[in-house]
């Protein structure tokens, strides 16, 4: 249960009170969760000036600052899935994955985030779609048309006008050919093989000629049972391929008889095309025609290791190798076998879920360095660890604070962080994703697809800019620049100079000085996602801020509340809402939500500036918030930045995303973590980077309490 205060309580008592909860949290953590008692109160919480990074990982005997809590088996959500496939199998596979993932059922959301391990569920429909995606992705990595096929014809089934069937072989007992017709789909280079043996007699071994379209391409002496191979160019179409016996020997006196025994004829190819399929060479570096099983194991072991984000045992690889053997045994190519193995890999829970193990029992313990690497990469990149991170996990040094901090810095600087943490914070915490599900009236409030997309990008780029800077995180509320492309600049009425586009993404940074815009609450994405089709909703806008930035809970709507008078003739939206607010049972909540919304009334339902609303009423965007009078959006931002719950709320939201589980202030360990992170981040300037860094340093990020028992 959430301990947030509700409407029924006086609005003066709305502020979060962390401290009592914190003290309780430390106490409980020390008594219940930690391996060793003592040193109570020596946590980092009360000493923000303590060194941020101790020199070595916390030892088994060190006290816990906060109970790290339990984390459930964590399914990849759909954006993580698509990004992981791209990193694992390359761009072609990533493109296929993105197309399929877009049609997966929407991921479950809690607290605004869709990476919450507890609520992410798996329906049969999702598994069905994962299955279809796996098929398409495997085909993109090991394309069918280009893949070599093996066409084998058994000699005894083919037969010849010379000789006789003898068990599983054909006995050419006189000079002659055993010829079969093979249909070649693609012009290219092929391996032609004949498996043969001899019945020896006389001085010479039996001659085997491999004949393609009547022309001998190989002439060998058969010394024993073996597969004889020659490579040759074949054009698309039918070809006759055969084995020729031309040195028959028979001594009637001794009954010595030299014969050629043919087991099968086989054509594999095209050999040169498959290897040129993009990406394939990354996974296959051996020659499958010589040794299917060995080559399959050599190819699949490193792939599975990356897919499962941890070292794999030989016995875990074996079933995947068996799939390749199954395919080649059924006459399909090695690559067809790899397709099957890839499909299985993409459906395996080892790939689809991030598991963390409690093999050592019920003690709260550090997670393994590979688990730590996955936690890092999924929150920063929304994808799998790269080679550098994996090597640090392999070496067991990732949990050293200096190494960890260096990795966070490196990963944040990587372009993948834009699609990872910046995208997630913009789309989920700041809810630009809400733009997907609103339908402003097309006549009154036209919003083109271009502008819609640009609005999402704008918020993301501003988040990214703050991640890249040392500015305090609350500057999100009044940052005096933004990013626009040509359509968005025209929409906002801001200048646009394509010459400023340094990175070629179409967006340029523009100053907002002299406009009524500043900060994410004046972004069209937020303003539109929290409006109705025909009018703004000061309540929705205000409610979102109260929920997501201040972590205050206005509580439930009381039963039988009269709805808003929707008649424009009776006054502006603001006037009608103020009438609504005059009802005492409504006032407790609305006195907080409404002023925020009123402060943003100078933006219409799609975020355009306005001085009058659609009904012709002048906009009034002054109000009072928590006893602080403010004027216009800038004044509102200043009032919000002064709220004491803003920092801890940011820590709570970023922590929930980073940890992939909802932090709940009613849970002592979580409350402790939120305060710990807030204090550490504050000591480091409280930039977004500092908050994320403090979370990574926290026990909640580096440790886990076993989930073995169900409460």
């Amino acid at each position, binding site marked *: 249960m959430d301990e947030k205060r509700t409407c029924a309580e006086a609005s003066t008592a709305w502020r979060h009170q962390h401290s009592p909860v914190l003290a309780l949290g430390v106490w409980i953590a020390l008594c219940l969760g930690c391996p060793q008692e003592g040193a109570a109160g020596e946590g980092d919480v009360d000493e923000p000036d303590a060194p941020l990074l101790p020199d070595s990982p916390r030892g088994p005997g060190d006290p816990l600052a906060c109970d790290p809590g339990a984390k459930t088996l964590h399914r990849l959500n759909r954006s993580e899935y698509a990004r992981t496939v791209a990193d694992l199998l390359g761009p072609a596979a990533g493109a296929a994955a993105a197309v399929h993932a877009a049609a997966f059922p929407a991921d479950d959301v809690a607290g605004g985030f869709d990476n919450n391990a507890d609520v992410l569920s798996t329906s049969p429909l999702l598994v069905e779609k994962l299955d279809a995606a796996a098929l398409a992705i495997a085909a993109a990595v090991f394309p069918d048309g280009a893949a070599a096929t093996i066409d084998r014809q058994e000699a005894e089934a083919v037969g010849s006008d010379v000789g006789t069937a003898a068990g599983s072989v054909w006995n050419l007992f006189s000079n002659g050919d055993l010829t079969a017709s093979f249909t070649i789909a693609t012009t290219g280079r092929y391996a032609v093989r004949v498996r043969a043996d001899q019945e020896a007699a006389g001085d010479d071994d039996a001659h085997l000629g491999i004949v393609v379209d009547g022309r001998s391409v190989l002439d060998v002496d058969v010394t024993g049972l073996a597969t004889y191979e020659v490579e040759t160019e074949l054009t698309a179409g039918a070809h006759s391929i055969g084995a020729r016996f031309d040195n028959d020997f028979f001594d009637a006196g001794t009954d010595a008889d030299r014969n050629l025994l043919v087991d099968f004829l086989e054509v594999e190819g095209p050999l040169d095309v498959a290897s040129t399929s993009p990406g394939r060479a990354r996974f296959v570096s051996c020659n499958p025609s010589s040794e299917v099983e060995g080559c399959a194991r050599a190819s699949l072991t490193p792939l599975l290791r990356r897919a499962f984000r941890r070292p794999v045992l030989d016995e875990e690889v074996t079933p995947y190798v068996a799939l390749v053997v*199954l395919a080649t045994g059924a006459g399909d190519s090695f690559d067809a076998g790899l397709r099957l193995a890839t499909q299985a890999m993409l459906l*395996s829970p080892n790939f689809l879920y991030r598991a963390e193990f409690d093999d050592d029992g019920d003690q709260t313990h550090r997670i393994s360095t590979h688990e730590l690497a996955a936690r890092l990469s999924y929150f920063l990149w929304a994808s799998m660890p790269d080679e550098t991170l994996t090597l640090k996990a392999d070496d067991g040094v990732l949990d050293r604070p200096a190494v960890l901090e260096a990795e966070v810095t490196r990963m944040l600087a990587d372009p993948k962080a834009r699609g990872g943490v910046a995208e997630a914070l913009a789309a989920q915490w700041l809810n630009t994703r809400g733009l997907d599900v609103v339908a402003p009236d097309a006549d009154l409030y036209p919003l083109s697809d271009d502008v819609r997309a640009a609005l999402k990008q704008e918020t993301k780029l501003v988040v990214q800019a703050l991640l890249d800077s040392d500015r305090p995180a609350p500057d999100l509320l009044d940052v005096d620049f933004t990013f626009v492309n040509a359509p968005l600049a025209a929409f906002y009425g801001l200048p646009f100079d394509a010459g400023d586009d340094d990175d070629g993404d179409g967006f340029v940074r523009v100053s907002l000085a002299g406009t009524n815009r500043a900060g994410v609450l004046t972004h069209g994405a937020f303003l539109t996602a929290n409006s109705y089709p025909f009018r703004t909703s000061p309540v929705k806008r205000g409610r979102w801020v109260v929920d997501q930035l201040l972590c205050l809970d206005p509580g439930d709507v009381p039963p039988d509340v009269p709805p808003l008078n929707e008649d424009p003739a009776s006054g502006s939206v603001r006037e009608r809402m103020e009438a609504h607010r005059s009802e005492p049972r409504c006032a407790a909540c609305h006195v907080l939500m409404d002023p925020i919304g009123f402060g943003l009334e100078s933006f219409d339902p799609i975020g355009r500036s306005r001085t009058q609303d659609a009904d012709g009423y002048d906009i009034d965007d002054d109000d009072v918030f928590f006893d602080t009078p403010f004027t216009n959006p800038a004044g509102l931002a200043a009032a919000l930045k002064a709220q004491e719950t803003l920092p801890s709320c940011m820590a709570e939201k970023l922590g929930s995303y980073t940890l992939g589980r909802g932090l709940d202030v009613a849970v002592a360990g979580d409350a402790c973590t939120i305060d710990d992170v807030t204090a550490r981040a504050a000591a480091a300037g409280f930039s977004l980077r500092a908050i994320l860094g403090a979370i990574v340093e926290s026990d909640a990020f580096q440790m886990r309490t076993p989930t073995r028992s169900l409460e």
Partner: protein
Amino acid sequence: MTLIRTDRPRWGLSRRTLLRSGLSTLIGLPVLEAMAPAIARAQANGDDPPRRFFAFYLPNGMHMPSFTPTTVGALGTLPLILEPLEPVKQHVTVVSGLENRAAFPGDDGPGDHARGTGTFLSVARLLKSDVDIQNGISVDQAIAGHLRSRGYSGLSSLELGCESGGSTGNCDSGYSCAYVVNVAWAGAQSPLPKETNPRAVFDRLFAGLDPLASAVEREKQRRYRQSILDVVKGDSARLNARLGAKDRLKLDEHLTGIRELERQIEGEPLTSCSPGERPVGVDVDVTAYVRSMLDLVVASFTCDRTRVASFMLGNGGSNRNFSFIGVNGAHHEISHHQGDPAKFAQLEQIDRWEMEQLAYVVERLSHVDDGNGQTALDTSMVFCAAEIEDGNTHNHRNLPVVVAGRAGGCITSGRHVRADGRSIADLFLTGMQSCGMTSTSFADSSGVLVL
């Protein structure tokens, strides 16, 4: 009371003989006359005739004064909102007075849209939370499970809708979005997400239709797919052994999906059937979009790809902008009418449009051949209702309910029936028994509702 009738139609000899003699061919027949191969086979084997259940969900209630027929018994002149059903009224039964007690507020306060929608087919008490979800199995899934256990090898069920959602986190008064966007629940914590893109649904249902593949090739592919799933199951078993109880529950969800895939692999190959045109994606014309979804329900019944379906016209508390039928406003907002006659008129327009969509699918189902001269309306029960009675009062009594079809002879259609104070679960029990289940209760049912 049980609902066992002796006068259920039997499979006719004539048709069976025809099939055995090989004279029947499916290819080339017009879409709506083609009988699905699985049904033909069942018929040839003398197996049970198919039974189908289709739930059609409407958001935001109905304007009841223009919905409820004034007299009981045979349907006469239809009220304004029901008028679109006139051409198919012999197939429909209007049921008044049913209530969903699980959706009553009790101590849970506001959130009637979530509560009405979450319990729409489950009639189970919801846990009011946006993190922990707790519901009960929905009637469609109870029926799907029964058909599965009786060896039906098509898709267990199909969940469709015309409003996506789930990703915004913007739910109803503390209720999880899961309650608002799903009506099909496989279990207490397992909502079955719906699909909202008709093209994706079509591909899912009919992509396996490959009449050119040889039997040998099909058999090989089947073996490959089974082998892949065996590897996945092996991985799951190894992983399971190292997980705690809570994690095992998560892994179980995955395994349930894998087993469903296995069942489909074992099922009959889709060989010949005419599912109709592959639809475009989401049509900007809302009516066309809705009908493309309903067409898929019809196609999946025609081809016997599934026997259980649910369709959500919108999500709970939907705020669809109805300007496309000349109603300037959003549905949920208008439904809070406060007794305003102008809003009544708008609601009537919206509600009539909703009944036009119901009429459309009922008309189409009346042409689906389920064998032995029966149509899908003879074999099926279509349950259409809203999650509340009225958008302003959020009442869960006297729900607006239209049933279509005769459920294998269990329903005498073409009537208006009053069932004041009876639980909606009683009607669901009727549906369950008509699908061959022997259950004598569902949720808070007191016995079948004889229609």
